[in-house]
């Protein structure tokens, strides 16, 4: 027994010595640990990122990755404070917009990556309007100045429709124009079929629905006002498109176009009800592809545009940004972080994400990797958006408090105890207060 133990100890010691020597040799070349934080906590996403990390390590001998995965909320809550304390990741996912990325840029907790953008040609893989969402000037202006991130996954808000529910109601094809869409919705209502699956108790289906319809009324050629609004250059929320969308939502809520009890149903539950066959339409984002693809009758398309709008904007953007933090102190670490980010937006990564049913921000090179029909529809839509420069914005990026302002007022709009005019006024009051606070 003792002999066996001694033998094992000797073997272990020899193994450790070999491992130490190997580590030492690698250290002489490129022994580096890259500390990464991401928000891929979902089982499917986690499997992809783990595989991508393995591939990266295989291509970079001597490098190790110290990965931490946090949920979106946890990441947002801890990232700034941790990096400010000199701890945490060297390369990280970070939410775009003023609250997280903007604050970190201002405190110099993120490093500009303009040189790497040129070196790796990221500006050719991602459109300029996408890169602009991770751009900040030294004066704190969003949407211009230095690049601070890139993103591997895309997102769009569109129209999910259940063809079986439509066909059962005598509607053979999905609507091609906004006018047809309204006619279909009214026809469904007349037949007693709930037109929309929606839940407003949690998540943000109502917000995406309202802003999706609003931005589908804006032609890409007229997008400057929206860009200025979101990037904090000024403007107003009191637009005709916003008011019309709010009126439409209030009308649908009041007159029974939504599934029964929608105000007590969470968004995620509404999606499950839609998958189960309740409601003909659901307006929300590509992040529900995983749930939606379990029902083959469900399809995805852009929210139809009204007559006169040939290149409608689609609310959307990109997954959280990959950025390099101030913890990457030396050039070697920064270069390694950039190599990691480059791999995260590589065609190989796009293929891996697409194969798992997720929506890559760069086009997958392997068409066979895209198995989901929803993903095919989404990728075709993304291509049109990129060609038309028609990727819209999340309206809640406009100010740090805008999401709360939408959340606080939307239930009142839908319950009918707030007029659409007062609703739009409340949004604009939030925005103008923010503009004033930043001296504009």
């Amino acid at each position, binding site marked *: 027994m003792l002999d066996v133990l001694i033998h094992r100890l000797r073997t272990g010691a020899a193994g450790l010595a070999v491992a130490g020597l190997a580590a030492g040799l690698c250290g002489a070349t490129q022994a580096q640990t890259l500390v990464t934080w991401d928000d891929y906590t979902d089982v499917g996403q986690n499997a992809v990122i783990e595989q991508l990390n393995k591939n990266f390590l295989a291509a970079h001998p001597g490098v190790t990755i110290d990965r931490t995965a946090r949920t979106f909320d946890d990441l947002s*809550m801890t990232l*700034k*404070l941790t990096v*400010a304390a000199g701890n945490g990741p060297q390369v990280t996912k970070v939410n775009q917009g003023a*609250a997280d990325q903007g*604050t*970190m840029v201002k*405190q110099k*907790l993120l490093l500009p990556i303009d040189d790497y953008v040129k070196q790796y040609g990221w500006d050719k893989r991602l459109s300029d309007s996408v890169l602009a969402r991770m751009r900040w000037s030294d004066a704190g202006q969003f949407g211009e100045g230095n690049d601070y991130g890139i993103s591997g996954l895309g997102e769009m808000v569109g129209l999910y429709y259940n063809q079986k529910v439509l066909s059962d109601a005598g509607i053979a094809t999905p609507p091609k124009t906004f006018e047809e869409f309204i006619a279909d919705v009214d026809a469904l209502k007349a037949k007693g079929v709930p037109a929309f699956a929606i839940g*407003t*108790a*949690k998540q943000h289906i109502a917000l995406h629905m309202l802003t999706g319809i609003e931005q589908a009324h804006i032609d890409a050629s007229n997008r400057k006002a929206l860009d200025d609004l979101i990037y904090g250059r000024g403007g107003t929320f009191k637009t005709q498109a916003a008011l019309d969308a709010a009126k439409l939502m209030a009308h649908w809520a009041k007159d029974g176009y939504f*599934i*029964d*009890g*929608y*105000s*007590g*149903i*969470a968004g995620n*539950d509404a999606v499950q*009800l839609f998958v189960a066959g*309740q409601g003909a339409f659901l307006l929300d984002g590509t992040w529900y592809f995983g749930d939606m693809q379990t029902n083959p009758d469900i399809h995805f398309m852009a929210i139809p545009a009204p007559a006169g709008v040939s290149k409608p904007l689609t609310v959307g953007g990109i997954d959280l940004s990959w950025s390099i933090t101030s913890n990457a102190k030396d050039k070697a670490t920064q270069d390694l972080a950039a190599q990691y980010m480059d791999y995260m937006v590589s065609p190989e990564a796009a293929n891996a994400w697409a194969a798992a049913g997720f929506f890559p921000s760069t086009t997958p090179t392997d068409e066979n990797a895209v198995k989901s029909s929803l993903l095919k529809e989404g990728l075709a839509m993304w291509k049109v958006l990129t060609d038309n420069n028609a990727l819209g914005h999340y309206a809640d990026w406009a100010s*740090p*408090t805008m999401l*709360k302002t939408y*959340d*606080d*007022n*939307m*239930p*009142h709009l839908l*319950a009918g*105890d707030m007029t659409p005019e007062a609703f739009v006024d409340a949004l604009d009051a939030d925005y103008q207060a923010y503009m004033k606070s930043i001296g504009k």
Partner: protein
Amino acid sequence: MSATTAQTIDGEFGPATASSARPRLQQTTSVLDRAGGGNLLYVIPGLLIYAVFVFLPILAAVVISLTEWNGLVVPTFVGLQNYINLFSDNEFYIALRNNAAFIVFYCVVPLAIGVALAAIISNVGNRERMALRTLFFLPYIMPTAVLGIIFQWLYNPAFGPFNQILKAVGLGRLALPWLGDFTWVLPAVGAVAVWYFFGFCMVVFLSGMQRIDPSLFDAARADGARGWQTFWHVTLPQLMPEIRVVLLLTIIASIKSFDLIFTMTRGGPGNATLVPNIYMYELGFQLNRYGYAAAVAIVGAILVFVINFAIHQGMRRLDRSAN
């Protein structure tokens, strides 16, 4: 027991004179009973833990509440500005008003149900009493966050059992979207708090009833008091110490309420269930306004002290007038 105990009892009750008893007491009394600074040594570990995890954070919150701080940069001292802003902040008043309404559900209703049930259960047999006491106390052993998640499902208008039952028995008109309805959301969340607390209140009152001298009930019976009169004039006044404890604990619970509301509604819809602690969370962790959030926390803590002090004073007066 040990000889020490026997000697102590001797010392207290024995026939010895005071002068002869004193040395014996000094020999046998525990070192922990001694007065003086020496024993402070034993308190230091507990005091240190208290200081690090309770006192210093409270102190830090007070200091932070006097600053404007986004959690990253050096805080800017703004004096009492956060408090001045707070008292003109409509959302804070909404949160306070909602919290006042929640006190009814966290405190008043469970207390009333608890007293009534205790009075009823105290009159049943021992085995039945034990069974009922366990049954009613069970909700209290569950984490409120778990209760929130479970009840959120129970209340779900599409597939929750509450509405399914209402529809099945022909009361479909009453099948409301409970957690999305501006009128009913607060009572719906409050009902869960009632369910959580009433068993706890009942157990405290039951133990209080065991303390009441049975001769009081005999005397009441001899005076011809009926059940209700006995409850009103004997049981209830005798339970005042327990009522005070229950009030203290449930009021603290209602003012620090967070998890149940957060898991069920997150303060919605449209702030209909917003309470100061949810508001504090939103301000601090979502909007990065840590100074302002700390001011909300401090005002909440002051409220706990003021309300409980007022209740204590009120109960003391009631006690005095009863005696």
